[in-house]
């Protein structure tokens, strides 16, 4: 099975406190630690596990700039067979539809049976997978938390719905699935693994290779634009205890007892 995994490099919220910059219109981007978007990493692992069972190849692709190559190499160190950087000045400022349009043009250049994305990026809208599927006229399922290959033509998948219940579906190939975190246990990638793929060439595709109309992507085509970031004032917030640890523990136990929690 030929599998394409669309990934993104994002600020890592487990490594960073996201704050506003001094101008108050963007997040502070200096010294941010970036990594692969968590759900995308699960998607890549799932693709690798599928080809380990049924054969095939995994291609990881990202729409971005040179800095984003590092996440492609990371996934190649995990075992992805190919990495592709889709990059062009004309793509900058694209909204979700723009990104999906770019990916659609890339998919049209190849032959993929299955396309995976992460369900959502840290700064994203859970949108590109569903849009890409609609542009390709492929079936789509979101929040996928298990995949079973039935035959060359269809999959049996499970979706995570409310209350931890699972919705089981059959879906025809080719299709697009957005992968939920927790579907598998992504393998560890060490520095050594990344060094081993450091010199593997990563082809770059731009707007002319992909035959995209410049009016369809980028800032000018975007119907949706972020204006600014802000920190909302959400009422009073918590009463922060400033005592010593011992004092705080005493206070917490007192409160727990007062609220009927300790018998």
């Amino acid at each position, binding site marked *: 099975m030929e599998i394409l995994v669309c990934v993104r490099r994002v600020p890592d919220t487990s490594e960073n406190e996201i704050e506003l910059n001094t101008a108050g219109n963007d997040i502070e981007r200096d010294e941010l630690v970036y990594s692969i978007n968590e759900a995308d990493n699960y998607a890549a692992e799932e693709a690798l596990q599928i080809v380990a069972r049924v054969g095939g190849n995994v291609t990881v692709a990202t729409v971005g700039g040179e800095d984003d190559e590092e996440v492609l190499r990371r996934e190649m160190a995990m075992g992805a067979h190919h990495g592709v950087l889709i990059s062009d000045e004309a793509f900058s400022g694209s909204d979700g539809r723009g990104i999906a349009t770019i990916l659609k043009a890339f998919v049209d250049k190849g032959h993929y049976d299955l396309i995976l994305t992460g369900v959502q990026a840290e700064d994203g809208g859970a*949108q590109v997978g569903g849009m890409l599927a609609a542009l390709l006229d492929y079936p*789509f399922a979101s929040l996928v938390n298990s995949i079973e290959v039935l035959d060359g033509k269809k999959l049996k998948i499970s979706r995570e719905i*409310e*209350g931890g219940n*699972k919705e089981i579906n059959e879906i025809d190939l080719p299709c697009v699935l957005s992968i939920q975190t927790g579907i598998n246990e992504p393998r560890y990638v060490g520095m050594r693994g990344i060094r081993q793929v450091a010199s593997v060439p990563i082809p770059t595709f731009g707007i002319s290779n992909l035959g995209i109309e410049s009016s369809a992507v980028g800032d000018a085509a975007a119907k949706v634009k972020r204006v600014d970031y802000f920190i909302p004032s959400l009422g009073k917030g*918590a009463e922060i205890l400033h005592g010593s640890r011992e004092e705080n523990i005493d206070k917490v136990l007192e409160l727990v007892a007062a609220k009927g929690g300790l018998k």
Partner: protein
Amino acid sequence: MARIFAYVMHRGGVADDSAFELAAAARKIDAAASPTAILTGWGQDLDAACETLGSSYAEIWKIASEALAYPNAELVRKALLKVLPSDSIVLVPHDHFGIDLAPGLSIKMHSAFVSDVLDIAGAEGVDIEVVRQEFGGQVSAHVRCNISTGAVITIRPGEFKAVEIAPGSGLVVDKSREVGSLAAGRRYLETVAAEAGDVDITKYNVLVSIGRGIQEKENVAIAQELADAMGAAVSCSRPVVDAKWMEKSRQVGSSGKTVKPKVYLACGISGAFQHLAGIKGGPFLIAINKNPKAPIFQVADVGIVDDILEFLPEMTNKVRELRSVVAK
């Protein structure tokens, strides 16, 4: 402004709460709007659900088809495309169904798409400005959306206060005949209920709930010891389950369990809305987190900025000490 439609989820003949929140969101986009509810389904359940909407919607469009008895997003999309005017503003709840339906619908309608909207900041000319959250709720963003060719907007459940529009007739318009037969590349087979697990976290008055801050599987014991000492149970947020440190049955949140304890100790939990959505009944919420900017502190009653890996064991010792005094 273009006509506003709200896609209403329903179950067992009753419209979902989100139906009334979407009506409120529509009124915030356009105070003069008379939004139209649109429902898909089959049989008596669909008819009954339509009847429950008269207080919020003057007009209710119903699409009945046996193929739509279970909401399959691809089929629903095809049905909606047959009946919706092309420049419509379509509101959809941001839940597992909305995530399936809305992005593709926006592509097929050639309209703008914004997801997981918490508030409408304003409308001017062809633009509306909405509020979203990014990075797990650590920051919010104003997002401008050009609605000149319509828009599909998913609305976060629980953010808009349901309003009753002047009691209308709730006129039900049957659009079924405009839809015709439907087929999809994805077929619903069955729903499998969540596994029960060893401990029922919904039965406890006190939950010691752990998040990513617990850092590794071995540290779960720290929370378990405190819970044991207090007669509480250990629950957790999504990252702990994703990392396979605890069973899914321990997860609190929209994709896990809904709990109603008296006291909720959020330990090393950042406070993503999906997690908070599982905490009901207004428990006394105590948050302990190293990061003073963690969103959990915005919703907690009491907050302590500390390392749970040091705080919790000391608290356990203190509880045991108190218990032994009482026992004597």
